[in-house]
């Protein structure tokens, strides 16, 4: 059984990333479940998906302390999931910062020590600079697939399964771009 949390900010494509992983897991014969947060999250709020796959999956929600992977699309967002870490959890974090409303309107500051804190306290953390990968892919919108590419390095699935799943879920004109993004992400770790 593997439990993966994807999280980020509304509009970053968290749900699509989890869908691709689910397709790949299903194709490999696993039972798979996912849980996502909709609604209010669409207006710039935090977005999160839990994906679990294995022989038989009951709960779509991951229990605290039991995530195998946490993939955070934004730096601050990674800090909201620390309860789900254990000593073996791999935490992949996109270095990008997106100011939340309280920072935008000037009542709070974006914490400056997050990277330092993560490096100090989280055993298996990888803070990824995705800028070049996104330039390489030719679109910032492919961040979700770049992060998925990084995650794929830790999973057993064949490259062709990932490509098939991307082809099945992304609009035809963006497939090539996304596969490029996936490979660039895979090379980041």
């Amino acid at each position, binding site marked *: 059984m593997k439990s993966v949390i994807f999280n980020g*900010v*509304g509009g970053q494509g968290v749900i699509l990333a989890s*869908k691709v992983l*689910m*397709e790949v897991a*299903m194709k490999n014969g696993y*039972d*798979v*479940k*996912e*849980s*996502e*947060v*909709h*609604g*209010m*999250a*669409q*207006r*710039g*709020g*935090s977005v999160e998906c839990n994906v679990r796959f294995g022989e038989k*999956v*009951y*709960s*779509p*929600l*991951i*229990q*605290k*302390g039991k995530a195998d992977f946490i993939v955070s699309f934004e730096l*601050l*967002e990674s*800090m*909201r999931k*620390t*309860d789900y*870490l*254990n*000593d073996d*959890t791999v935490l992949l974090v996109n270095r990008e910062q997106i100011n*939340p*409303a*309280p*920072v935008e*309107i000037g*009542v*709070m*500051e*974006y*914490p400056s*020590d997050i990277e330092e*804190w993560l490096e100090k*306290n*989280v*055993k298996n953390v990888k803070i990824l600079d995705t800028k070049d990968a996104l330039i390489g892919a030719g679109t910032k919108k492919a961040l979700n697939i770049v992060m998925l590419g990084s995650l794929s390095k830790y999973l057993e699935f064949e490259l062709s399964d990932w490509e098939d799943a991307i082809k099945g879920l992304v609009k035809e004109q963006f497939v090539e771009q996304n596969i490029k993004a996936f490979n660039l992400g895979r090379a980041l770790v």
Partner: protein
Amino acid sequence: MTSKVMLGNEAIARGAWEAGCHVAAGYPGTPSTEILETIAADYRDIKAQWSPNEKVALEVAAGASIAGARSLSTMKHVGLNVAADPLFTFSYTGVNGGFVIINADDPGAWSSQNEQDNRHYARAAKLPMLEPSSPAEAREFTKKAFEISEKFDRTVIVRITTRIAHSQGIVELGDRENVPVKDFVRDPKKYVMIPAHARPKHKKIEEQQAEIMDYSCTSGLNRIEWGGKKRGIITNGIAYQYVKEVCPDDSVLKIGMVWPLPEKLINEFAAGVEELYVVEELDPFIEDYVKAMGYEVKGKDIIPLCGELTPEIVDEALNGNKTVKAVPEYAGDLPGRPPGLCKGCPHAFVFDVIKKLDLNVNGDIGCYTLGVLPPYSAMHTQGCMGASIGMHLGMEKAHGPEMAAKSVAVIGDSTFIHSGITPLIDLVYNKGTGTVIIMDNRTTAMTGHQENPATGKTLMGEETFELDLEAICKAVGVKRVRVIDPKDKDELEKVLSEEISTREPSVIITKRKCILKR
């Protein structure tokens, strides 16, 4: 058999299609919206529509059912409050074509104003209620619900929660059953609920409860999964999955039909285990029932009544396992990321002006409810769809017209059509002098841009008559109706100042398309 990864709501749409459903009507509301959107996109054999509100949607589906079609009505938990009137009486009439209501509760209030537990509606309206535990069951139970509806001549409610509606899983796909639309048969004793017809109907449905309870015990929807005999856990919905996850060795009575509850099965289960537990989200619905049967059970004394359950809550309550933290607490302040109005949102212009004028704001349900948060902090009451206008009048009744002169009601286009028109009639009829702003962004934005009667398009994408909000306001007797573009904030301020100080009812329609809508 083919299978597919599906969202719970997509699985329900699929189940309805496979069951041969002909007509579907609902009103958007998280977490129920995707059901009808999926039908409109993928299962166009079903005539699907957004109605102006849930009451109308339920009545349209009831009419289609009585006319002989298999019918579906979908809504969120608070939507069923709006539709409660027809719900209770169509419980008496029964159906002709199968009639299924999908009701989506929101434990945790992820995108709702309360956490009500709608299992109580099944008991109160005496209707069979099913509750799936996964997307796969969502499809299966929706199909089953049509079968039960026709078998017992009753409306059937399928209750889901956010964690079923918005979770994905592998769903097996079947073919569409070919169900012809039956003939409408005139039968006033069945379909016209004058007191003389209602009294015997009530008696009949009470007598029928025993028969449905029997079905509840034997249909397989409720089932015992024997494990260790020390602990027996009765559970339903998503909580079943958490129980299976953290207590894999205990015996479980899985409740898939939450009303009527299966007394014989409960007796059998209770006799087979040493200790009885009930793990359920929100109210002690099953627990109270089992206690009334005379059993001692552990339930809400260890499982929280408020909020969503999670695997760790159940693990701690049943096994005493506490989450071990792998990292220390972060010492600094982490800014939250609350949802907010988008950059360039037309509602934001209106709130800027209202804030400047420092008015009391009676708010309503939609994106604009976010006006309560900084930087606007410009909303002071809000409760349910359409409440803003009636509350606005009530405040004036409490303090006189001076109150109306420093207050405003704000309501969106879809919400106004949903349930804002009748209170506007009241405001005029009972001599209010208040000002109502209809924030017309040309869509139902909060739930994801659904069409409504003022957009001129149907759910199925057809062109239709475009409701004229200005003409409606005038027709109910508001003489001062002004339509302006809120982007011109100076003009809005001028108009709003004039209207609040005028001692007669007025409506300002701030018309500008949602910034996210192409």
